[in-house]
């Protein structure tokens, strides 16, 4: 015989279970009130630590009777700071920084190009005296992403998916979702240009709706040329920026070598187009363009040294730039090849799925749907990773190089109140 009867034990179990439930509820309630409290404590600690850091960065003058703190403030916040300093007993000196100081940078972009700032930061911030290129690479980046992914269906998913997610998302990831939407839009455009929709090749299928506009789709050969043209446009645009940047940083004289390159490349491009249309048919104009450009490149390669040394340096520049530009331009072929490979893989997925549907198995409809979902998800993941990274390289290597971007700026991280969300 057991020591206690069975009903008593069962009663005991029920009682203990009730107790466990109560304890769990208590813990939940505790968490509900304590997590915000912990967060606010964390906030205070972070603020104190920032404050102490600022204090530690002061240097003592006159045997530590005066503490000196140097800091930068953006122009639009200067007034507020001055007011604060006047209200509080502080002795201060206001100065405009010289270019020799390592001035931290705060990027200022419009609504569209601000979305691309995180991408630019992956490489480097511009130095204080440089142009911020975010606005310049943003439209290209968008187009290149679209070119590489190049499927109108996938683009539509990006656009609507990010749009729906935006309704529920927190404020700090909304810019990211807008970026995804813009990239999706570009993907739709290029999907429409090449005629690809969820891996279906609209050029080869017989859908009545598209019969009339079929001739408008670009075939792969034309896409190949389009990639090179986009590349040439970005490179010439980059040189234009380099010219403006050099005028801004060093003066007009230093920009003339870049002007020479612009004359040669833009001039040759325009000449080629015009002579293909048979508007121009003498080569004299081409020679004139080339010699004018070469003149600038050779004579103004480095205005600081004597003329003969300049010609020598100019010749070396010419050699390295011509070979470099050729390589840069070929690098844009990747846009075409990536677009083609993601379209081919999408097509393969559809092909296999249709073969599954054609089999005799009873469960073929389920497998058809599952395979399509699985296959396209995988393709989207892999293709969009590639479509993100490769335009990034084109931006940071080909574009930044031709635009003469140096980078290495320090981010402006002001001493401010912490804003951790509780």
């Amino acid at each position, binding site marked *: 015989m057991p020591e206690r009867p069975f009903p008593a034990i069962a009663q005991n179990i029920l009682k203990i279970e009730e107790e466990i439930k109560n304890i769990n509820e208590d813990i939940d309630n505790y968490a509900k009130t304590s997590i915000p409290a912990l967060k606010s404590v964390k906030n205070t600690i972070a603020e104190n630590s920032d404050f102490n850091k600022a204090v530690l960065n002061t240097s003592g003058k006159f045997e530590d009777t005066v503490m000196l703190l140097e800091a930068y403030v953006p122009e639009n916040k200067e007034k507020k700071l001055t007011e604060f300093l006047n209200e509080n007993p502080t002795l201060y000196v206001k100065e405009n920084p010289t270019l020799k100081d390592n001035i931290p940078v705060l990027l200022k972009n419009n609504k569209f190009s601000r979305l691309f700032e995180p991408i630019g930061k*992956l490489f480097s911030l511009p130095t204080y005296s440089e142009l911020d290129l975010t606005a310049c690479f943003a439209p290209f980046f968008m187009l290149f992403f679209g070119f590489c992914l190049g499927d109108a269906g996938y683009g539509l998913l990006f656009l609507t998916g990010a749009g729906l997610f935006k309704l529920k998302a927190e404020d700090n990831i909304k810019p990211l979702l807008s970026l995804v939407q813009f990239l999706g839009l570009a993907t739709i455009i290029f999907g429409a240009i090449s005629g690809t929709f969820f891996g279906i090749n609209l050029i080869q299928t017989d859908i009545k709706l598209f019969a009339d506009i079929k001739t408008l789709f670009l075939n792969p050969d034309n896409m190949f040329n389009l990639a090179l043209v986009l590349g040439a446009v970005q490179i010439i645009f980059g040189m234009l920026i380099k010219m403006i940047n050099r005028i801004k940083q060093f003066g007009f004289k230093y920009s003339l070598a870049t002007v020479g390159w612009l004359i040669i490349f833009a001039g040759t491009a325009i000449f080629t187009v015009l002579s293909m249309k048979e508007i121009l048919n003498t080569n004299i104009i081409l020679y004139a363009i080339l010699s004018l450009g070469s003149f600038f490149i050779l004579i103004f390669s480095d205005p600081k040294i004597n003329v003969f040394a300049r010609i020598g340096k100019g010749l070396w520049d010419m050699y390295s730039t011509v070979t470099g530009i050729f390589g840069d331009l070929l690098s844009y072929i990747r846009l075409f*090849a990536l677009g*083609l*490979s993601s379209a081919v893989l999408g097509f*393969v997925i559809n092909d296999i799925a249709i073969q599954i549907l054609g089999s005799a198995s009873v469960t073929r409809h389920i497998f058809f749907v599952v395979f399509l979902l699985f296959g396209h998800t995988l393709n989207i993941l892999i293709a969009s990773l590639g479509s993100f990274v490769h335009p*990034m390289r084109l931006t940071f290597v080909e574009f930044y190089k031709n635009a003469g971007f140096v980078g290495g700026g320090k981010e402006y991280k002001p001493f401010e109140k912490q804003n951790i969300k509780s």
Partner: protein
Amino acid sequence: MSTAVILAYTGIALMIALAGIGSAIGVSSGGNASIGALKKNDEAFGKYMLLSALPGTQGLYGFAGFFIINAKLSTFIVDGVMVLTMYQGVAVFAAGLALGFVGLMSGIKQGSVCANGIAGIGSGYDIFGKTMVLAVFPELYAIIAFAAAFLISAGL
């Protein structure tokens, strides 16, 4: 079966196999480095995974190249027998050889760039973006080889 057909399919085999092996080795290097880095810093798993996945594309280029050429070759079947000229056979073989070897080497080398990046991130350096940019340098040549394979197949 003619020599041309044998040559063509040997080329296709090389294309799929070598490019695939390159990717397999590349992603393994990335995976191994990730596991090592996880011991130091397990918060950056997303970054490790993205970097590890980068060398996976070479194998896909090999497969996409196979698909394009396979579709083209099937148009040469007359009465159930594939009829290829020697020129066509050699062209496909060359496409396969080029894409296969470039895919193999670029996959392996891209893997080692990614692995180094992962190790760096694990040690607390902020080099994710830079590693991504550097890692796609070797991939370009696999892309070029894929474009070449496409152009060869278009010219058959």
